[in-house]
């Protein structure tokens, strides 16, 4: 039910991405010496953008039309492209995720020293670009904004990163460009594939617009093009190095929001526009995702560097989300989108603890060199444990409902794959508990006895993310309703072309 009436004359969706963009532009022109102002402005912009996302969510009418708050301005009329924004349940949840993570990332960026003005401008640009992708209903705008996020990602890693940052930034850029090549080809195919010559996703997604053969040919390039950013195995190579090299806030955004952009594209564009193509590829993709979930967890288990561990765990969790999508069932898709949200928040929390609270103090991420940190950083230990519990899918945390939905949905079509993917669940428990045990318990190395306490920004950011994980875990209703409403048309379109066949 709609909770707030928002004035239709105000372009709410544009504000969500314009606020961080405008603030980012402003701080880019401020001198680094005004760092206090820059940080305050940046954090405020993130908070306003997040608040607007909440407001729009409250103003969304689940009983109303599929896309709401639609804004349309002519842009390239000759090409059939327009500035077309609108949100459904899926976009709203993604917008909320972006707002939540951006606020935390901003709070954890207060200790960045050097070139503050550029850093904050890039961080805000990243957040603005992600919001714009989530609200775009025009494929061209969506892709332009999608490409725009590449620039701040690479520059943040290259300019403020740590471990082998040039290498990581280059690798990321190469993988992304390869994905983009597929996406651009796919977008052009879609444009010429229908007689309508339009980029309007509402029209492109209309029932039976493309012949089945066309759909089967172009589904895979689009899915994989987006999938590279979602970190699907075996195109995940950029993710561990990128996440580890990135400065803390950037790895939070990278794993928490950017990977979700890819998954969102898979769902919205690849599956949403080409359901018949998707139907042909569901089974092989589901196999890849189920194996990816297990492989990601197994590789996370093998890491000695705790940031690498979180990075590999992201690959496993994203595979689980995409498994929900390619299960083709409404339950599975709902679980998949919830997984995007839950994993986005929890991975931001884990990266925040590991990158900012631990590494910036200890200057090591090797689990063998850490230990006993609970004695000096009890709140960080609590935060990591809460994030870890959510990651393991313990009831009471957001991750549980996501995992539950994905496994439930996968069972409907691929029971055997549900069994395979389920192997990732205890493995996730294994590496998470091992990491907690190694980093926070046991003897405290003497060198770490005097580490400084958490700052207020660290405490607030961590508490913010952990509270959301718990709140969604304890009261999943509002979010699941929203998502279930959003995926319903996509699942129905898929069910029309690929009904679940009962087993012999």
């Amino acid at each position, binding site marked *: 039910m709609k909770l707030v009436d928002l004035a239709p004359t105000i372009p709410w969706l544009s504000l969500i991405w314009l606020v961080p963009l405008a603030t980012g532009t402003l701080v880019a022109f401020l001198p680094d010496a005004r760092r206090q102002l820059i940080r305050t402005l940046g954090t405020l912009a993130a908070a306003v953008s997040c608040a607007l996302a909440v407001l729009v969510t409250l103003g969304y009418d689940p009983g109303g039309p599929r896309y709401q708050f639609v804004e349309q301005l002519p842009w390239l009329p000759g090409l059939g492209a327009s500035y077309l924004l609108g949100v459904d349940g899926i976009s709203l949840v993604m917008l909320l995720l972006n707002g939540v993570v951006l606020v935390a990332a901003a709070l954890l960026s207060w200790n960045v020293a050097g070139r503050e003005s550029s850093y904050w401008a890039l961080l805000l640009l990243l957040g603005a670009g992600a919001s714009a992708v989530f609200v775009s209903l025009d494929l061209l705008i969506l892709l332009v904004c999608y490409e725009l996020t590449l620039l701040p990602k690479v520059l943040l890693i290259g300019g403020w990163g740590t471990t082998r940052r*040039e*290498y990581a930034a*280059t*690798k990321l850029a*190469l993988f992304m460009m*390869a994905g983009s090549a597929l996406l651009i080809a796919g977008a052009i195919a879609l444009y010429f594939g229908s007689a309508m010559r339009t980029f309007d996703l509402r029209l492109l997604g209309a029932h039976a617009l493309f012949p089945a053969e066309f759909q089967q040919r172009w589904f895979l390039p689009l899915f994989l093009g987006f999938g590279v950013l979602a970190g699907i*195995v*075996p*195109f995940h*190579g950029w993710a*561990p*190095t990128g996440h580890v090299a990135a400065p803390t806030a950037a790895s939070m955004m990278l794993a928490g929001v950017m990977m979700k952009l890819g998954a969102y594209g898979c769902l919205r564009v690849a599956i949403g526009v080409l359901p018949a193509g998707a139907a042909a590829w569901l089974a092989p993709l589901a196999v890849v995702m189920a194996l990816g979930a297990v*492989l990601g967890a*197994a*590789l996370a*288990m*093998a*890491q*000695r560097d705790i940031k690498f561990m979180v990075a590999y765990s992201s690959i496993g969790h994203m595979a689980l989300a995409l498994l929900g999508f390619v299960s083709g069932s*409404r*339950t599975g*898709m709902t679980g998949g989108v919830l997984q995007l949200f839950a994993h986005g928040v929890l991975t931001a929390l884990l990266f925040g603890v590991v990158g900012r609270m631990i590494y910036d103090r200890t200057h090591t991420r090797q689990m063998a060199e850490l230990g006993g940190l609970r004695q000096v950083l009890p709140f960080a230990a609590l935060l990591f444990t809460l994030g870890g*519990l959510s990651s393991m899918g*313990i*009831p*009471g945390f957001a991750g*549980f*409902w996501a995992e*539950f*939905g994905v*496994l*439930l*949905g*996968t*069972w*409907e079509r691929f*029971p*055997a794959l*549900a069994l395979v993917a*389920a*192997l990732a*669940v*205890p*493995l996730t*428990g*294994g590496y998470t*508990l*091992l990491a907690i*045990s190694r980093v926070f*318990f*046991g003897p405290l190395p003497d060198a770490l006895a005097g580490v400084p306490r958490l700052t207020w920004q660290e405490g607030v950011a961590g508490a913010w993310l952990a509270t959301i994980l718990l709140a969604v875990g304890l*009261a*999943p*209703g509002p979010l*699941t*309703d929203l998502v*279930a409403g959003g*995926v319903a048309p996509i699942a129905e379109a898929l069910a029309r072309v690929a009904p679940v066949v009962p*087993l*012999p």
Partner: protein
Amino acid sequence: MNLALDHAWLIAALPAAASLLIQLMPSRAERWAGPLAVGAGALAALLALLAALAVAGGATAAGSLRWAPAADGVIALGYRIDGLAAALIAMVAPVSAVIQLFAIGYMAHDPRQARFFGFTTLFSAAMLTAVIADNLLLLFIAWEVMGLCSYLLIGFWYERDGAAMRPAPREAAIKAFLITRVGDVLFLLGIALLWHETGSLHFGTAPGQLFAPEALAHLAATPALPGIPAASLAALLLFAGTVGKSAQFPLHVWLPDAMAGPTPVSALIHAATMVAAGVFLVARTYPIFAASSILPWVAAIGALTAVGAALVALVQTDLKRVLAYSTISQLGFMVAALGIGAWGAAIFHLITHACFKALLFLGAGAIIHAMEQAVGHDGPTQDIRAMGGLRRHMPLTFVTYLLGAAALAGLPPLAGFWSKDEIVAHALTHGAWGVAAALLAASLLTAAYLTRQVWLVFFGSFRGGATVPHDATGAMRLPLVLLAAAAVLVGGINLPWQHGLSDLIGAEVGAFHPGIAALATLVALAGGGLGWALRGIATDADLAQPNARGALALLAQGYRLDMLYRRSFGAAIDVAMNLRRWVDRAIIGRLIALVGTTAGLVGRITASIDDIVLQGGADLAGRGVDELGGEVRRSATGRIQDALALVVGGVVLFAVAAVTLLRP
């Protein structure tokens, strides 16, 4: 209407509220944590007993809350106090309260009392929720929270290392969590299957609910995997949850190590309640098991576990590990009872076992507490070879422990006699000869290991040094007396001529045959004689050392399953690493090289980047992971790898079992 039944949700909510209060308590109020936990627990126990009486009088209660929407409908999470739930809450709530009262004394000098009581009260709340849940999803959620509390409490003394305790609590906690999680995730898949096939997770026989006749008929008739009926697969998946939680072979290996937790935790979670939840799960979903073809396998696993664990208990030298293997063995009795159709007897034995096993663990706690004062914290506080003669020094503990042991051994007219006899009688009168033989053998061994243990601990003279241990004082005395009274009397709830429990839970009344009762008693007495004869067995050399050889050593090390699991995990990790290397080399390496080559041809990328891409890229991840994989295998935390071996092995075994056993 009945006041207690009307507010039945309070039975679970009171401990939950206490837990929340304790967690939020300022640290200077910490000494109130224990009394608060006991107060909430006692109130919940009172309500539970009143509610159970009301249910026995014919009333039921139910309530629900719309909570978790699923995509295709709403799962309303609610509670329902029927006969089975009433019987269980009437046991769980009082036993929890009594054990927490004991813990006030036991944990009196621990600096983290609030943490302890915060977790134990949360555990009680979860266990009670699982029992009164009216649908499978809520039961699963509570089940998982119990597992989490178990993990937190086994590892409660996380700063202790493995030297004083074998293994270290941190490792034992992770091992327990991971192994039960293997069962849990299969349980979750069972839920997925049932939801998919029937569209409901609600316990009930009304149309549209899980146990509706048409739903059960559908489950029995529909194949879930080719050739396997959905009912059988669902029952097998649910049973996997039981095997993990109730420590049945081959997933039982976590329970002996779980003794690294504080002893009241062993009594509450790893003897009386949580481990019995697996048995409860099967009883709760019995219509599905009845519609499946796996009950013979359930009986076989239970019988095998009952005998195998009792045999291991005979040669243990650690006071608590004897009891842990005894718990595994007794849970095997219950599971076997479920398998042969005596589910009423299984629940009866669950309830009596909770009383006397909690008593035995608290007695062990009193002994360990006293030993700490006699031989010091780092001394052999749990080694029964260092005890002896405690009969004179700890008379109260001796008398109560003896009553608990006699009840467990099944001596008439104590509680264990009635419940065990009902299971054996059912097996003998229903032609389950193999199960009957196994259970009689297990009974013999039970009496034997108890006699050996009681002899070594309480008789002879004290072998631990000049200072002798003394009986506990204060809060630790009353629980021993209360539970001893329960161990003597609780069999009265289901006597052959007064079968209150069977009527309450709606189970078939167990038959009573004087001949079988006499046989069971004789077996127990013979076991006592055997135990006396073998009282000196396995007390000389340290057979638990990995290099010890021989049949006794094999038993002392629990059939060396841990080592087997460790080795198989090594192999599994090798496979994962090779796969990873292949993915890196064959796909990613080539891809990067291709992109790099193309870029080089175009001439847009500088030589330095080219270098990185062409030479560094392909090697980086593969090389790193190789090293790491080797490190994982070499590292000293072998116990955790045992657990992981189970994770991998368990699922594989399960798949093999599902495919081979269930094809009609």
